[in-house]
């Protein structure tokens, strides 16, 4: 999947450039970035668990 490859290469490249790592991620799937507790439910075919 080309999109995934792109994303991963960006992350790797950023780490190779410097000995310092600092980043923050957020969940892209929900409007407010919160995903709360979905360990059990929410297993749609495209569902992202942990």
């Amino acid at each position, binding site marked *: 999947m080309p999109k*995934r490859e792109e*994303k*991963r290469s960006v*992350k*790797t490249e*950023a*780490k190779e450039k*410097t*000995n*310092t*790592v*600092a*980043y*923050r*991620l*957020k*969940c*892209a*799937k*929900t*409007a407010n*970035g*919160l*995903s*709360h*507790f*979905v*360990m*059990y*439910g*929410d*297993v*749609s*075919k495209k*569902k*992202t*668990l*942990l």
Partner: protein
Amino acid sequence: MPNSDDKMGGLAVHSIDKANTALIDADNVFWAMTAKNAEGAPFIPRQVLSLYQKQKESLDEEMRQFRFSAELSAVYIDPTDRCNSNCPYCYVPAKMRKNGAQMTKEQLRQVLNKALDYFAGKKRKPVIIFHASEPLLAKDAVFSAIREFKDKFSFGLQTNGLLLEKEDVEFLKEYRVGVGLSLDAPIRSLNNKTRPSAKGGNFDAVIRAIEWFDGYAGLNVISTMTKFNIRSLDKLVRFLHAKKVPCVLFNPVRFTRKHSLKVKPDEQVMTKNFLKAVDTAIELSQGSGRRIIVANFSNVILGIVAPEARRMMCDISPCGGGRCFLTVTASGEMIPCGEFIGLKGSSGGNIFKTGIKEAMESAPFQKIRSRFVEKIAECDICLYRNICGSPCPAELDSTGNMFQKAVFCEFYKAIIKYAFKLIAEGKEKYCFREEGWDNLVYNYQL
């Protein structure tokens, strides 16, 4: 120690290991990691401080929202108080497990309709989880509810597997139900010590079920760490990976009931073996092309790299109990979390007489939401306070004071430090399902 570090530009300078130093703002979990110089001294790049100044205000606000909003997203329902097992660490009182209440189909429908009323107008599909004691003792009611409400809720089920039949597994897969199976060890005799049943234990039933599930994405295995199984965690990871289980949780035994103390593992032994299991999962995930994650460790990594995307709400304070989720017992009592079952003064009302909104506003629920790390001695100055959350309030409340640090405080400190180390080594992505990692986007990066 995570509470004895110098500060620089508002950031605590914290040694992770011989090679790496972290700079941390404990309040909003801003962090940066940098390699030490040849003398082993920390090196602070200037751009870290400017990034921190730029992000601080928005991170403070995000963390405040995440911690102190009360937005329910899941309801645990115990359709029965009864159980066909007798685990030595169970938090459900023995009398309830033997002679407790059990919901009828109609009562379960009533509960789900109440939940529907509460969630009306919310954007996200709410989650219903059928949980302890053993929900499959009320299988007809549970499956009938899943059929009827399949478009309204996402469903989960936590079971010891003893009553699972092949057609049940097909049903659960068809309805995309998230399923947690309880299994403590990869060896029958060891597992059955802490997961007993009338016919010996649940080992054979769970293994059979895992094979029927056959790599199902919604399957996870929950293992309680005790003095009996603590040295076999890595073997359990290998065993489950070979059986295509994608996710395992290693929960430290809780002491909400005093009898659990009899199976308490040594904390250092637990830490060492837990991390060994994490390493095993990473090794298998890197080397085999098929991942297995230790979900409660993944949640710790999330607590660092994406704090507001955390999935399990035990590792934050206030915890998720009575805030992000609640439990409805078989007799209809609404309590902040299943861990409070049988603890006096924890009911926010009975769902057959009142509503979820009233429970959320009740004094017992407010009390749990009032428990946060800034009020707890030692946690208030710990750099990891908003990654760990100092679980669990129910466990500590049962000893008379919930404003105490976590029973396994040193365990949590050690695994958080290890999580930082893995991030410094660039291994964090192996702690997530591939699609999970790809679902996260950068808020910022250096």
